[in-house]
């Protein structure tokens, strides 16, 4: 039943492997960001507090950007149209994309995680496999958010224009830079509707306090609900904006 989705996922993996610049971006850029955060953060305790949030932020950012641009290219180059004329369902396409990009997003998570723990020496209490699952839930939402947003972009540049609207507000309001409780009340209210808020809360609890997935079940549930919503939106809007 999922054979078409696997075919699409393996095609995406093949494409990314052959695109060396993107591979370098996936690996080098987050390491650079992590290094800057590591070097510029004045004390160790603050770094312990910021590093997990960076992990959640990066999977959201790169999942969104990579999928948004790739999907927009599929639309503008006509490959999505060709795929839609073939015996594949919307769910095949969305789940194929999910599997393909999630693999890279999780590989990226692992690289940054080991870099943070072993090079930047941040405090780490939880279990790695549980952190990977938690990151995967954020990643599913990010990939489908990118797919959905690409519907409204006419070219790759326009995907970048969505970053200040879709991603940046989440950075500032999710508790990455300062606690959500210190924000004005109306911003705290907005923060409740942003997935990264729950991503940052959950991963901090896991990495700093050693919580397992059950301990952050509220965050897991809300992130899963966001992810499911974005999967539905991505599937429903798939036909819009194909070329021609």
């Amino acid at each position, binding site marked *: 039943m999922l*054979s078409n989705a696997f075919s699409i996922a393996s095609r995406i993996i*093949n494409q990314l492997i052959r695109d060396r610049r993107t591979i370098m971006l996936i690996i080098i850029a987050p390491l650079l960001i992590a290094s800057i955060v590591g070097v510029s953060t004045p004390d160790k305790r603050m770094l312990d507090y910021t590093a997990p949030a960076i992990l959640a932020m990066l999977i959201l950012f790169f999942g969104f950007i990579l999928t948004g641009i790739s999907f927009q290219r599929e639309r503008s180059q006509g*490959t999505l149209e060709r795929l839609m004329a*073939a015996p594949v369902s919307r769910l095949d396409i969305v789940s194929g994309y999910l599997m393909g990009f999630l693999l890279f997003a999780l590989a990226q998570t692992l690289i940054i995680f080991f870099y943070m723990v072993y090079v930047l020496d941040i405090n780490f209490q939880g279990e790695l496999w549980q952190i990977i699952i938690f990151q995967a839930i954020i990643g599913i939402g990010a990939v489908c958010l990118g797919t959905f947003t690409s519907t409204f972009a006419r070219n790759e540049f326009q995907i970048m224009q969505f970053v200040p609207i879709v991603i940046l507000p989440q950075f500032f309001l999710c508790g990455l830079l300062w606690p959500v409780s210190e924000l004005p009340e109306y911003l705290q209210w907005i923060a409740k509707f942003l997935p990264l808020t729950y991503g940052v809360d959950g991963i901090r609890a896991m990495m700093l306090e050693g919580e397992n997935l059950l301990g952050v079940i509220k965050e897991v549930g809300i992130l899963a609900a966001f992810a499911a919503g974005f999967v539905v939106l991505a599937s429903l809007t798939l036909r819009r904006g194909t*070329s021609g």
Partner: protein
Amino acid sequence: MEKPDMPERDNDNAVAVEKLTFRYGKLSVIDDLSLEIPAGTSFGLLGPNGSGKTTLIRLLVGLLKPAAGNIRCLGRTPTSANARQRGYMPQLHSLYTELTVRQNIDFFARIYGLRDREQRQSRVDEVIKLVDLWDRRKTQIMHLSGGMKQRVSLGCAIVHNPPLLFLDEPTVGLDPDVRVSFWDYFESLTQGGSTIIISSHTMDDASHCQKLIFLRQGKIIALGTPEELRSAPGKANATLEDAFLHFIRRSEEGQNAE
């Protein structure tokens, strides 16, 4: 109770279209069009840019939903569930530029249901040879010329041996010798019983088709064999271009009379 969507022959027609209408917003792109395409023929959709050729093909492959009317392809309403019956070569190259010739054709072979690895590989090899790109099979699409990309695109459309093939301007940008080899191949397909529907705005393509329609503003202004259409202007040695202009004038006169 709704009738199940079972395959059936529409009196040996590969495609039957009845009172088809499609609009982009308020603009009517296909206007109350009816058409029957016999199985085993090469059928040309001719018309200037914007006449509705691409929209008609996209309707026939199920990419667009009509505002009104019926479409039957090999007896079925075109959906993704019966898409294996059809091959589609879009106007754009529509290929994955980072992947090689082989990877592109192999991907579409898998998507169109060629699951057995050995059978698929042998079919993909056969198609690569057919489109004369064996020496380039490991080359990424981004390093190919426009004509070569066009050949890969054809390969992706025919890899699953569809009985019904839709080709949207397949010969654009091809060298004359490649164009001849494309047409030789199309003729071999129709001799084998396949039906080919080709859109084009070049009269050279039109002359190769067994049957043609001239499209203008989403309406059929003429239908017939190339010989029948050429004889319509009533002058010796008339070309298909003369015939097209003749039918345009006639349709304009008809509109003015209304």
